């Protein structure tokens, strides 16, 4: 039975609190608005950063486990002929399923003042003289399948290609600025020396072998630089985390301001509220009951603000593409891919947000609540 009476009691307290909140609409709506705004800003940052992290993970999931570059004087250099074969002969790499040279490079297009990524894919058959372009190119140069386009190569010659196909929008995050072409076309366009490659892609089946393979490569080919997918992933994750944390640290000024605001609101009891508490105590409420009522008031406002702010942030990030924070969090490029982020809600994130908003609010209103709750009925009624 005591459980039931307890619940009954809380229910009545909530009823009373709601009615008392409704009596002072202007003041409470002001607090609710500021509170919601704070949750909205913080939640937008958190949701957006998290979505970017998951997107980066998804994009990298299909990339090779190891990319091997060659360094000359600490700078990235071409893979000379025979290098690939040398790896096969001198280094017995158990666990490497596939190893192949890749051909890719950057091309600066002075018309749109942007860099394209030119690539000769090994797993696609593209006829000579034709190219496949990414969606960002389609937009910036107004291209469509069947159009012709000319690029002036670095040697000064003009090369003309027919657009065979435009890559689908779904893969835009990776393919926005991509131009795919035949290997011969690629070599001819960049005057790429015969038998040379840009880098080597390796796929390793067992994730626990990746590190061993990389260590072996480094010890036998000291001029090589293996780049692991895991490392890239980790780096992305920590960059986005860092940006998010930095934003939150900057916004801590806003949290502090909000704490002061909440303190002021809670401390500035109107004469009417003071009277109300005085009367409640005169008719038999205890200090503990008044604190409970005030606690419910804070909790109701907090939960409502949290819900409203979080939903607003969700809409802002996933339906309006986070227009307010995009430039800070995403990074910048001329041909930046256009992409919609997959909606994703994370438990850790909600818990963290809760600590950033409800926790400071509660901490700030504790003392004012106590002050209000311990006022003596007679002093209030006499004044």
């Amino acid at each position: 039975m005591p459980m039931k009476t307890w619940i009954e009691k809380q229910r009545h307290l909530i009823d009373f609190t709601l009615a008392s909140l409704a009596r002072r609409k202007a003041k409470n709506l002001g607090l609710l608005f500021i509170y919601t705004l704070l949750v909205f800003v913080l939640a937008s940052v958190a949701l957006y950063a998290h979505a970017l992290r998951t997107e980066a993970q998804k994009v990298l999931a299909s990339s090779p486990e190891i990319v091997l570059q060659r360094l000359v004087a600490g700078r990235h250099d071409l893979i000379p002929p025979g290098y690939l074969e040398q790896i096969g002969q001198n280094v017995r790499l158990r666990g490497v399923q596939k190893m192949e040279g890749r051909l890719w490079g950057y091309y600066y297009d002075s018309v749109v003042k942007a860099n394209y990524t030119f690539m000769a894919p090994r797993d696609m058959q593209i006829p000579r003289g034709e190219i496949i372009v990414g969606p960002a190119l389609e937009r910036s140069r107004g291209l469509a399948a069947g159009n012709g386009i000319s690029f002036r190569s670095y040697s000064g010659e003009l090369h003309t290609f027919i657009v065979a196909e435009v890559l689908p929008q779904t893969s835009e995050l990776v393919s926005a600025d991509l131009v795919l072409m035949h290997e011969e076309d690629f070599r001819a366009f960049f005057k790429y020396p015969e038998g040379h490659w840009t880098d080597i892609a390796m796929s390793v089946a067992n994730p626990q072998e990746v590190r061993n393979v990389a260590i072996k490569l480094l010890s036998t080919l000291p001029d090589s630089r293996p780049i692991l997918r895991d490392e890239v992933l980790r780096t992305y994750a920590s960059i986005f985390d860092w940006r998010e944390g930095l934003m939150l640290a900057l916004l801590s000024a806003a949290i502090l301001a909000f704490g002061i605001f909440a303190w002021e609101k809670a401390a500035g009891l109107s004469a009417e509220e003071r009277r109300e508490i005085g009367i409640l105590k005169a008719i038999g409420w205890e200090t503990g009951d008044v604190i409970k009522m005030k606690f419910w008031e804070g909790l109701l406002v907090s939960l409502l603000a949290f819900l409203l702010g979080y939903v607003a942030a969700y809409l802002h990030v996933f339906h309006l593409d986070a227009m307010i924070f995009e430039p800070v969090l995403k990074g910048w490029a001329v041909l930046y891919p256009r992409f919609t982020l997959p909606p994703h809600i994370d438990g850790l994130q909600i818990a963290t947000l809760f600590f950033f908003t409800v926790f400071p609010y509660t901490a700030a209103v504790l003392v004012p609540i106590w002050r209000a709750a311990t006022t003596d009925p007679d002093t209030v009624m006499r004044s």
Partner: protein
Amino acid sequence: MIFQPAIIALLLAAGISLFMLLAAAPFAVRVIRHWDVASGSERQLQLERLTYLFSTLVAFVCLVQILAALLFVFNADKMSVMFVGAMCAVGALNVNAFGFPALYAQLALFFLATLWLAINHVDSRARDYPLVRLKYGLLLAAIPLFALSLYLQLQYFLGLKADVITSCCGSMFSEQASTLASEVSALPPKPALIGFYGGLCAAIGISIWHWLRPRDGSGYLTGIGALAGFGAALAGILAFVSLYIYEHPHHHCPFCILKPDYAYQGYWLYIPLFTGAAAGMSAGVLRLFSRRPTLAPIINITSRALAGVAAVGFGLFLAVATLMIWRSNLILLD
């Protein structure tokens, strides 16, 4: 790696908690020295009025610590992607020497916080506040632990550098290593199974007994039973429950079950387990004060309710663990 949202939140929580307790400390000293409920002096009235503030404040700190314990584990698990060789929270906590001590300190704070809340609950219901000195003495005693926890967390988080090679759960919980955790996991499944079911069923049985007949003897036993049941449960998770969840005969890690790969099953185990253990231990401690005349009826009601929570918590834990074992495709015992 201080600029991680969850890390900032944890440090914020630990910092503000310590600050609040320090603010309450002078008052605690005053209460211990001058509290006299029979007196009607101005000072006593002022003290009584201030206890409302500081009890609420400390209760708030305790609630925050309970949530922070959850966030700490959650965060350690999430951070593991940042470190080479770390596959779950074990790897992330092993990055430097302060990870596991910080976790243990946080868990100690969790149990201390629940105990303080239980004492506060019964004390504020008795007319003469008989435990007020004990409450504030406990608060003063807890301050060093809070400070230690903040220090360990600061050291841990400031010492984190992404990409350090760390030992993973595979090596720590493998049967060859000689740490305490590995000895537990090396328990053969059969005795571990008997201890697990025996310990937990005993804890549940004693709790129900106390719920039916709230007396001192059964109350103390509930506390001891909760402690034993908690130990048996952790040993059981290490020895065989985790094996059944991973469906792998050598993976004993108690943290990987928190991962999304295993559908967060760990939370279904740990949340009821910790709730039950904290409730049972608090019930046992509360019975120590049942001789005080003003407290006796309140303690009867509270310890009985806590024993009920303990029975439900342990029962839920046992049911969930049994379900997981049943649904698993791994066969450890014929």
